[in-house]
Structures are given as C-alpha cells and as structure tokens.
C-alpha cells in the first residue's frame, strides 16, 4: 500500500504545483490585465469549475488521443486535476491580492517600480500569507480528488487497495486502512501549512484574532 500512497502524494504535489503555476498569472491578469483577457479568464474559470473532474479526466485521457494528443495516465491525471485546481486557486489568490490595499500598489509605483516589480516585491509576498489557510483547504481537496485517477488506471492509493482486496477478500479492513492513510495525509498538510502560516506571520497583524 505504501507504493500507492507515494503515487497519491506525487499526484497531489504535481497537480497542486501545476494549479499554482497557472493560478498566480491568472489571478494577476484577472486583476491587472486588459479587459479582453479578464473576460477570457472568467469564462475559463466558469467552464473549468462547471465540469465534473471525472469528465475532465476522461476527456483528456480518452478524448484527446482522438485529436492526436496522447498523455500517459499519470500525466493526464495531473493535467486534469491541476487545471481544475488552477480555477479554484486563482480565486483564492485573486481575493488575497485584492485584500492588499491599493495604496501599497500606488506607493510601490511612486518609488519607480514597474507594475510587475510592485506585484512581485510588495503584493505577492503579502497575498501568499493570506492565501495559506484557503490553500490548505484546497490542498486537502486535491489530495482526495487524486483518488479519481483510479479511473484512468493510475495505481494510486485507492487502486492499490483494490488490488490487495482482490487477493485477500477483506474489503472492510483494507478500505478502512485506505481511509486512514488519506486522513493522515490530509492532517499532515493542514498541520504543515498551519506551522508555515505562523512562521510567516507579520508582527502586529492578526493580534485581534488572539484577543477574541
């Protein structure tokens, strides 16, 4: 079962990474980009979020080869889960970026920074901090959604469990064990990101919460 768990971890990691790599430029363009781009992005998000993940995965793995685009099962799963996650992650970052006051952007520009420099040096470092709690949530969702890669034949945690059941005929303990492994992994993500959030906390901000 360890092998399957490792595949699940790799699926989760690469899907989140792909999602993040797409989400930050998407969020940037959705706020600062020209109107046409903004329109296009909101359509992209709407569409991606409206299709069930399993349909996206089937489309990529079984549909695309008909158009001459072939992906191995693992890559197809990462692509599908990653694209789906990018639509959610970009929403997280959009909100986080917009919560940084406009006057900081103005102040950065007034020092002679370009808008990209202002974004990179001033806005992004603060947005990332704000995005950590919702990102922990999104990571847990992606982790659980990797179980759908089962349907493409990727031998991840769930399918590995299935294999073991087919030789042992003991579905109850095996599925419980699978569930237990998912639980441990989800908790690990949450605890790690929580620590990360505390370490990155900006002194003086968030004191109100502690009082409450």
């Amino acid at each position, binding site marked *: 079962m360890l092998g399957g768990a490792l595949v699940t971890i790799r699926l989760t990691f690469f899907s989140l990474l792909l999602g993040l790599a797409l989400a930050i430029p998407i969020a940037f363009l959705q706020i600062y980009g020209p109107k046409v781009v903004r329109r296009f992005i909101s359509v992209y998000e709407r569409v991606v979020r409206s299709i069930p993940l399993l349909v996206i995965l089937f489309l990529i793995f079984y549909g695309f080869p008909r158009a001459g685009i072939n992906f191995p099962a693992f890559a197809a799963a990462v692509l599908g889960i990653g694209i789906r996650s990018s639509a959610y992650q970009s929403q997280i970052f959009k909100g986080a970026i917009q919560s*940084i*006051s406009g*006057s*900081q952007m*103005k*102040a*950065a*520009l*007034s*020092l*002679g*920074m*370009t808008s990209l*420099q202002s974004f990179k*040096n*001033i806005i992004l*470092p*603060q947005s990332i*901090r704000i995005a950590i709690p919702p990102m922990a949530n999104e990571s847990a969702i992606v982790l659980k959604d990797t179980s759908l890669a089962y349907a493409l034949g990727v031998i991840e945690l769930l399918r590995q469990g299935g294999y073991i059941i087919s030789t042992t005929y003991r579905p109850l303990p095996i599925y419980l064990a699978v569930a237990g492994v998912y639980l441990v992994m989800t908790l690990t993500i949450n605890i790690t990101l929580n620590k990360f959030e505390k370490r990155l906390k*900006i*002194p*003086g*901000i968030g*004191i109100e919460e502690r009082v409450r």
Partner: protein
Amino acid sequence: MSEEKKTILKIEDLHKSFGDNEVLKGVSLSLNKGENKVIIGPSGTGKSTLLNNVNRLVPPDRGRIYLDGEEITSQNINKMRQEIGFVFQDFGLFNHLTALGNVKVGLTKVKKMDKQDAQDLAMEELRRVGLEESAEQYPAELSGGQKQRVGIARALAMQPKLILFDEPTSALDPELIGEVLNVMKNLAKEGMTMLVVTHEMGFARTVSDEIIFMENGYIVEQGPPKQLFNNPDTERTREFLFKLTELYGEGDE
C-alpha cells in the same frame, strides 16, 4: 548671494475628468528649487488629483508637466517617479516589511543599490525623521505619526528632486500631527522642494513660501501667506481662510 532660481516642477494647463465630472479645468503652476508651496481648498476640488497627475498615478487628460525641464510622459514614467517623492494620506506602507525594509526596498529593487549601502542610507533617513529606534518594527506595530514619518523617510531615501505630500496629516489623531509637521518643517528648512496639500493652516502660514487656493478645478488665487491671509484678492479666499483658521486654529508660532 543671489540664489539661482531653478524651476523644478512646471505644470501647464492641466485638465482631468472622471466621467462627466471635470475635476481639473486648466491648472498651471510652477515650483522652484527649494520652494515650499501649500495647496488648500475645499474637498473635491482636485487637489489630490493634481498631485496624482504629476507622477501619473492618475494620468492627466490634457496639459504638460515638466520635472527639471524634462516633460513627464508615460515612456519615462518609472524614471521620473524615482525623482518625485510621494507621501500618502493613508501612508501606503508595505505591511510585510519593517520600517527599515520600507525605506530600503526602493533602493535595492529600483535603484539596484548595493545591500549594505542601501541599509546605511535607509538608516540615515530613518534617523532624519527620528525613528532609528523603530527600524526593526513592522508598520502594524507603529503609531500613525510614526507610520507617516516612515512614509516620509521612504520618499527621502530615493533622493527625489521634489516631494509631493497628499494630506499627510489628515488620517492622524490630533496629538500625532505635530511630530509629522515638525519633520516636514525641518525638510523645508533643509531646502527640500515640496508641494503640500493640507488643511494645516499653521504649517501653511509659517513654513510655505506660497499658498495656492484651489476651488472647482481652478486656482482661485496664489501668493505668499501674508498676502493671502491679510490682503487677499478675492472675497472667496478670505472666507475660506477664515473658516479654516477658525476650524484648525492659527497654528503654533
């Protein structure tokens, strides 16, 4: 003796509208090196818009702006902005950086200055506004007056030719205004060229070389404080100054 008067900022026939609302209807003014001019006027008369037009945070619709003889266009804007300090009403401090970090970031990221040199210069500017002891504190740990002094130090560190102040004390508690005004007074004494939008009559009266009274997108009257206070050309100027003085006091000194 005769100090050469060099024009640092020249604004010609500036126009700006937001939708149907014409905020600036043709404003011209100029500022010589070392001069300190204060813009006063009722809210909504385009004072802030004027300052924001100068460094194109809000681009003007029509008119020309020259910094040290060179016209400011969108092409050279990042270079020009380095030479124009801007102090904001709501400070605009970068919350994830310490006071020192706020002052330093323009030096390292924009001027590409060596880290140690930037550190030394930033510390020097913090000292200038009396905040060397708060260098390692974050904006959320500072008082409003301290925040604004960091804002001023940040502008100063870029070695600007001119600093624009957009109501620098309007967001402050009354007892914190003094420390910010003192810093500004010292800058004026040191010969910094400043264009200040403020309601602080004491500052306008005692520090500025000239007061510019704006209303409805025009400059109604401009001149030395004594003239505007004692012998204004228009009744409207007299009325407005009277009201402000009544409201905010004559100021110390």
